[in-house]
């Protein structure tokens, strides 16, 4: 088995909101150039964990190193090498996509061509549109474009596919895979298991602020099967979503 280098290491992370313990001693590592998934129901502590790593929230205790930088003392260095998509962020009002990209280029001090960034996420036709006028999938693709402006080593995507239709989700999976193939490490949160299975190299199940399992999707499934588990119903070779995609096509349609 090849030796993997950890680009993020989280040790005993604890986060309390007043009396409420949202994250209770998380430890995990993210390897270079993998797609790492944090899976769990709403309220499990995924966003909290992600935003602490992104230096946007303070932790209560624990130790986090991102590409050799400590979140406590080198937050500024971390910000320069990561790209962040927040679960619910908006964008500066009254600006079109090109102008928003220009703004972020200035904030990152990055020298990029805005149109090329939009081409990467297939939004060149929407260059003059306002963010608010985009469809759900387009909004997420634009958010991903803003994460790539500073050519980051790691990007963090917080539930990028929640609320999207099946085509838009598949488009996004393709986009995320492309970004990974270009050499970027991806940390993603989701509560869709099919998405994790298709997209992630390794996943951590988070439940009430704790990791209850961490492995590759294959290993997790194999372990369950080896323990004697069987699905109650015989699985068909396709599911309803496959039928839908097959009928409607998989092309970018927004």
């Amino acid at each position: 088995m090849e030796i993997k280098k950890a680009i993020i290491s989280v040790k005993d992370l604890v986060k309390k909101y007043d009396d409420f313990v949202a994250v209770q001693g998380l430890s995990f590592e993210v390897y270079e150039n993998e797609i790492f998934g944090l899976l769990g129901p709403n309220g499990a502590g995924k966003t909290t964990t992600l935003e602490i790593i992104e230096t946007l929230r303070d932790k209560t205790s624990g130790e986090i190193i991102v590409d050799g930088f400590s979140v406590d003392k080198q937050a500024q260095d971390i910000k320069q090498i990561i790209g962040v998509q927040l679960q619910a962020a908006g964008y500066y009002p009254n600006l079109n996509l090109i102008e928003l990209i220009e703004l972020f280029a200035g904030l990152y001090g990055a020298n990029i061509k805005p149109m090329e960034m939009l081409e990467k996420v297939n939004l060149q036709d929407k260059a003059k549109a306002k963010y608010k006028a985009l469809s759900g999938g387009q909004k997420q693709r634009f958010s991903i474009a803003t994460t790539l402006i500073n050519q980051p080593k790691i990007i963090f995507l917080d539930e990028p596919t929640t609320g999207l239709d099946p085509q838009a989700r598949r488009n996004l999976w393709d986009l995320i895979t492309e970004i990974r193939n270009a050499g970027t490490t991806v940390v993603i949160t989701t509560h869709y298991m099919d998405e994790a299975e298709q997209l992630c190299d390794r996943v951590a199940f988070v439940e009430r602020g704790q990791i209850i399992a961490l492995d590759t999707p294959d290993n997790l499934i194999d372990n369950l099967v080896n323990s004697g588990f069987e699905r109650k119903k015989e699985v068909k070779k396709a599911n309803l979503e496959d039928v839908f995609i097959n009928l409607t096509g998989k092309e970018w349609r927004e």
Partner: protein
Amino acid sequence: MNTGNSGSSLETEGLNAETEKAPFRKLGSYSNTTATLALAKASFRSIMRSPSAVVFTLAFPLIFILVFGFLGGGGTRIDVGVTPGSDISNPVITMLSKTGMIRLVMDKSRADFDKLLEKGNIDAMIDVHRKVNSAAYSVNVVYTSASRDKGGILKSVLNNVFYDKTLKPSVAEIKENTIVGREYKTIDFILPGQLGFSLLSTGVFGTAFVFLSLRQTLVIKRFFATPVKRSSIVIGEGIARIGFALIGALFIILIGHFFFGFTLVHGVATVINMLLLATMGIIVFMGFGFIISGIAKNESMVPPISNIVTLPQFLLSGTFFSIEAFPSWLQPISRALPLTYLNDAMRKVAFEGLGLWDVKFQIMILLIWGIGIYAVAVKVFKWE
């Protein structure tokens, strides 16, 4: 966000400042100036496309200027200087003060009166003395071309006095003269007031809305995921707002000058002085905006809170009427408001042609307000 959280992220900011000096940091790789200017540009574009900003800054003041420009001045009150040495206890003066329309100004030297008369700060000067070897009085009036309308009113009042039966025997003659002065038009009063109010509304409403909405829509949070500094965000927004307000001010001054005959004593130099005053004003007023963005819980709370700040100043700071026209119990309130001093300084600079140093008192009051406001703003402003 809970306040404990944002308090501790301030500490993190402090730590960042330290690491920036640390030797292992990639030097010169990040420019705060670039980030600040990128924000200023974005913010300026956004303001220019926001209908409410344009309406508040330009349309309202211009409408008021238009209305008042054609309507002429508000309540009439005639200031009449009484020449030193005049006999005060004579029936003419008593009669004049009874009309209620005329305010007698005394205790000034003849030279002072001449200056005031020339500028139209007083509307006329009157000198009453007993004729030699006679029981009758001689009345000597000097009008000014700077205030023809009011001079005319005084003239008819005096004529009434002259033909008044009870007075007739004691008044022998009225001698009249008119000196040439600079005409003080309604626009010369109205425009600086409107300009001041435009700066107040842009500063307060604009700043409050922008920072509240950037905070609530998590735009600022997304900014914090970039290496940008907090100071860059504040300064970038400030540059955009000041730039926008100054363009608005210039527009108002030019329209006033070319279409309504607004007086600019020293031309371009006066305009530059006015814009410098405008800059000081908008910076002070933006402080109110920062405070309001911090205490408002949502966007619908911004207008009522902003109105608490802007409305009293709109009414009491000499925007429409000279504060001297207010009842005396109101005047101390007027004299406590920052807009009063901005308006006052603007009028002195524009019409009397004074320099900034001559209005240092007004500037000092603005400065004191600025320090007070920003001291509060630093306490109540919220980032998250």
